[in-house]
């Protein structure tokens, strides 16, 4: 026999599903629009902004690829973003661990010190940062970006990871110590793998802004060798003339690598994020 609660859940369930679908459509439509627009010529974009493109030809993309030196810039973006992510994890994780699991005099102060970094607009510091890179000889090298990105991602990552580390039970740590593990070994072998969802979150949240950042590459990079994708895209934004057709094709191309990686990894990322959080 159907319980009263069950019937209510049936209707509520249907409404819930409707809401989920509605919101999903809202999130998907603009992206779909971007894809469609990327295939249109500029006059067509203004004439029929929502219709299907007249032609699905890929020449616009080939044009963008060539003019924005996409091949080279893609390699650079991958290299710089990847290295920054790796460096960030290697440095932020132990720092977060130390701040979360040990108590020592400087702890609160250090924690606030890290956090303070996100409370100021980063563009405030560009002159001293530029001078520093110049003095270190890092201008026009990928290291200027890697170090800047890692540093700017540090506050939030340390904060996030410290929350994840805090949740781990003390017994694990104690057991490891009894077994003769050093602090480093405890961290590396036992505690770190348990915060995989935290690591995944840190990577995802940071990688996207880095990949799409155009300001710091603009500031630090001069020669074409190391430029990243967003810089390549600039060429289409004139002072008085914006080549809309190429801009949209370019935006789609520039978003594609992240979109692909995301779609491939979303299962893992979400599974890691949700499964890891379920207590085992």
């Amino acid at each position, binding site marked *: 026999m159907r319980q009263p609660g069950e019937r209510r859940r049936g209707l509520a369930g249907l409404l819930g599903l409707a809401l989920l679908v509605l919101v999903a459509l809202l999130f998907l439509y603009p992206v779909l629009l971007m894809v469609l627009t990327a295939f249109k010529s*500029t*006059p067509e974009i*203004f*004439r029929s902004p929502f219709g299907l493109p007249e032609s699905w030809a890929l020449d616009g993309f080939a044009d963008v690829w060539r003019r924005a030196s996409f091949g080279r810039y893609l390699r650079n973006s991958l290299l710089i973003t990847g290295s920054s992510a790796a460096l960030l994890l290697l440095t932020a994780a132990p720092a977060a661990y130390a701040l979360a699991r040990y108590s020592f005099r400087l702890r609160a102060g250090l924690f606030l010190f890290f956090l303070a970094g996100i409370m100021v607009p980063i*563009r405030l510091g*560009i*002159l001293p940062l*530029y*001078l520093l890179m*110049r003095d270190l000889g890092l*201008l026009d090298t990928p290291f200027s970006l890697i170090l800047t990105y890692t540093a700017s991602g540090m506050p939030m990552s340390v904060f996030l990871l410290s929350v994840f580390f805090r949740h781990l039970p003390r017994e694990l740590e104690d057991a490891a110590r009894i077994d003769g593990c050093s602090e480093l070994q405890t961290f590396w072998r036992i505690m770190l793998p348990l915060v995989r969802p935290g690591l995944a979150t840190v990577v995802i949240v940071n990688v996207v802004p880095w990949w799409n950042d*155009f*300001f710091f590459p*603009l*500031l630090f990079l*001069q020669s074409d060798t190391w430029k990243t994708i967003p810089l390549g895209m*600039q*060429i*289409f*934004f*004139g*002072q*008085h*003339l*914006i*080549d*809309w057709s190429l801009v949209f094709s370019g935006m789609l191309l520039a978003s594609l690598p992240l979109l692909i990686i995301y779609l491939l990894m979303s299962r893992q990322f979400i599974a890691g994020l949700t499964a890891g959080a379920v207590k085992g």
Partner: protein
Amino acid sequence: MNRTIRLLATTLALSLLTAALAQTTLEFWSWRTEDVEAYEKFIAAFEADNTDIQVNFTPYLNTEYNTIVATALQGGGGPDIVHLRAYGGIEALAEAGLILRLDDKVPALADFAPGILLGATNRADGGVYGVPFALQTVQVLYNVDMFEELGLSEPTTWDEFLAVGDALKESGVYALANGALEPWTLETLFGGVGPAFYGGDEYLEAVTGGEADFTDPRFAAALEHMVALQPYLAENYMGVGYTDMQSLFAFEQAGMLIGGSYELGTLAQLNPELTVGSFAVPGEAPGDAAISYYVDGSYGINATSPNQEAALRFIAFLATQEYGQMFTDELQQISAVPGVQPSSEALADMVALMDEAGTPYLMLTAFRYGQPSGSTLLQNEMQAVMGGDQSVADAVANIQRGVSEWYDFE
């Protein structure tokens, strides 16, 4: 012995030859991302005559350009050749010694019109720090074919202008493509409409000479006439942005556009079939019509550049009539170099208008030396007025108050 001498001689000759062929590379930064191909042509022409110099043109995003250049120059880096903004845009760089003073180093500058050199002058020491590159004018651009079809002619009084607007509206298009979403487009509107009502040169001299300020009724009259155009603007004009304006006019959904001479290039790209005519916004009486003009910027040299000699040669080239002609022909803009003939009819019309009825673009030329600049104030206050949030009287009061914070009207 002979062989050794011959070997030495050859080596010497070869090294001299290599030295002669040794290239200096100049870095040239600009905000003109849309002109890359044109500049590469200009540079090729220069390099053909100066084989020991190579110039790399690197454009940066317009909205970030000022920040990037300022930071790089302050940091002792940056390009050799700097594309400089006009008027207030160069003073800070000049005062800090970051760009080179040029009036004693580039003889060709003496031939430029003094009014034009003002755009590249540091008022503090009177020095010229750049070679002006282009002039822009602000006027009414109109669709020649559409006017012909409707039997309309260029209006000579304000009432005639409104009548033209009515006729266009009746035929089913917008009279003016202008919108108010982006504040700077309102300054353009002011540049087109204003001079006929605030009294052009006369008022400018009064304001900068200490005899008047923005509370002068002439200034308010100019703003009132901007507001009077509201019924002629596109529907929902508060949401019409710059690119919308260009497309509305280019794709013939509006008959007129109050815009700059720099639009010619863009319009040609958007719709090559379009024939563009221009006229000055008329005043109450025939003969009151006036348009605004201004220097768009100049080419300067980084004071810390290690390649000053080569840079000076390139800058000298940019001051020649040969270059000015190439510039106009290729980019469809008015060159600041004296003696250059405009290439297209539309451009020639604008130059004629400028000679006849031109007056310096009020805020841009005279009130960008402090913060908040006259331009920023005008733009933001008028946006509030056009949106119905504020009266012209309040706008005038705010503009006056804002500029007085850093400008002495005495």
